[in-house]
């Protein structure tokens, strides 16, 4: 992490998301898939939003994706890139893009997951150019 990188806010967690954040502390990005309809959804829930089955399971994502969209926040003490990443598992998730030149990002660019420590020590999945 470069010294001029924005510190991430600690996430709020609940019983449905504890496993996601515990895995992030182990350097893993988890996805939630429904065993009923087979579809992955995001953000991960106990009840599948596609078919309403409560038989959902965690699995580890590849960590690969592409930028769906992004916006570099310039009016900030420390500029940062908010982004939507479409991961190889098919869903699009909000994240940040790090370890990059903010003036040379592009929609469609390949990225891979990495992690940053938020206030309080929780590890947060973010993405960097692959």
């Amino acid at each position, binding site marked *: 992490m470069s010294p001029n990188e*924005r510190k*991430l*806010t*600690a*996430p*709020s*967690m*609940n019983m*449905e*998301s504890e496993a996601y*954040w515990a895995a992030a502390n182990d350097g893993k990005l988890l996805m939630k898939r429904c065993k009923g309809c087979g*579809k*992955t*959804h*995001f*953000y991960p*829930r106990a009840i599948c*939003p*596609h078919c309403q089955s409560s038989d959902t399971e965690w699995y580890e994502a590849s960590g690969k994706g592409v930028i*769906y*969209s*992004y*916006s*570099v*926040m*310039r*009016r*900030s003490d420390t500029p*940062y890139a*908010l*982004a*939507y990443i*479409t991961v190889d598992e*098919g*869903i*699009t*998730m*909000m*994240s*940040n893009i790090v370890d990059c030149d903010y003036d040379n990002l592009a*929609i*469609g660019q390949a990225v891979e997951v990495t992690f940053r420590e*938020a206030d309080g020590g929780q590890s*947060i999945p*973010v993405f960097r150019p692959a």
Partner: protein
Amino acid sequence: MRRSSKAYIAGAYEHPTRKAVDKTIPQLHAEVAIGALMDAGLTMADVDGYFCAGDAPGLGGISMAEYMGLNIKHTDTTETGGSSYVIHVGHAMNAIAMGRCSVALVTLAGRPRAEGFATLPARDYGSTLPELGFENPYGPVITNMYGMAAMRHMYQYGTTSEQLAWIKVAASYHAQHNEHAMLRDVVTVEDVVNSPIIADPLHRLDCCVISDGGGALVIVSPEVAKTLDGRCVKILGYGEAIKHLNAGDVDITYTGGVVSGPMAFEEAKVAPADIDYVSIYDSFTITVLETLEDLGFCEKGEGGKFVSDGNLISGVGKLPFNTDGGGLCNNHPSNRGGMTKVIEATRQLRGEAHPKVQVPDCTIALAHGTGGSIGTRMGSSTVILGRNDA
């Protein structure tokens, strides 16, 4: 042709303040309520239905009903951010049609400017919000969420910053005639694209103002409308929708207007070509661009061309919009712009807009609200209004 209407807008009032350092939020609600009732020729005692949203202090409408001395038999506190008040118009029409009330009051008021919100963080809805942990670490605020929508629209359809700037230019042409508008200087496309970037690709002049104030509407049954002064405006059609991130199948190049628009047009039995004037929620220039496409004023992806070269300027272009200056130049009370959209559409249909921006023979108008963020999740609502003799 005489179109039927289940309810009428009888009163509309916009608070003139833009910085309310000496007034409380309940006081502002009461002032706009009194203003709209006076405009209608009614009193607080006539009100039997009250509609408000999250800006009203207290539990639903209960505290404000007490403050204003209302004695009501119907209330609705549907909360969809800035689009709430457009939804309230539709819900008031439905409640009146069902006989639940006959004089409905809708209020909005706030003072974010007096309270010192120089910039606007995403609203805090509490830690039980299910998506919160998956978004907040990354610093989403209003500007960069709309920025992402604009970036994707540009990528997918070739929309340019200059095209977005035309929306602000049109708003500024109108605002020069509004003595209450916060920004009255006419700006050029160059002014907009040369203003500092806030969040890519949105410049400072792509963003709406932060202002205090508010507004109110009085919506009445056809029976009550007959007893009033003939300035009532017909509610012809209405639609509402919620759009969200769809379990991760994200597309932020369109709004909930794709659902609310066709519903409203169908009920009103009119088409986009029949609309003489539009009030389109303009939190940012991109909000207007996506909404115009979604309501069918042009093909999807053609919004950039449609708004260019003054097409939204009254007296110049084909589709005059936001003739009060809108959120981009006039005001954005409580950071919620749906109310003022309905108020200016009402002025146009009454022939009471500023003479420099009044649309000649304005017969059918549309007002559209967007609440939340087109970059994440939103409430969308569309009303189609008609002049008294429409």
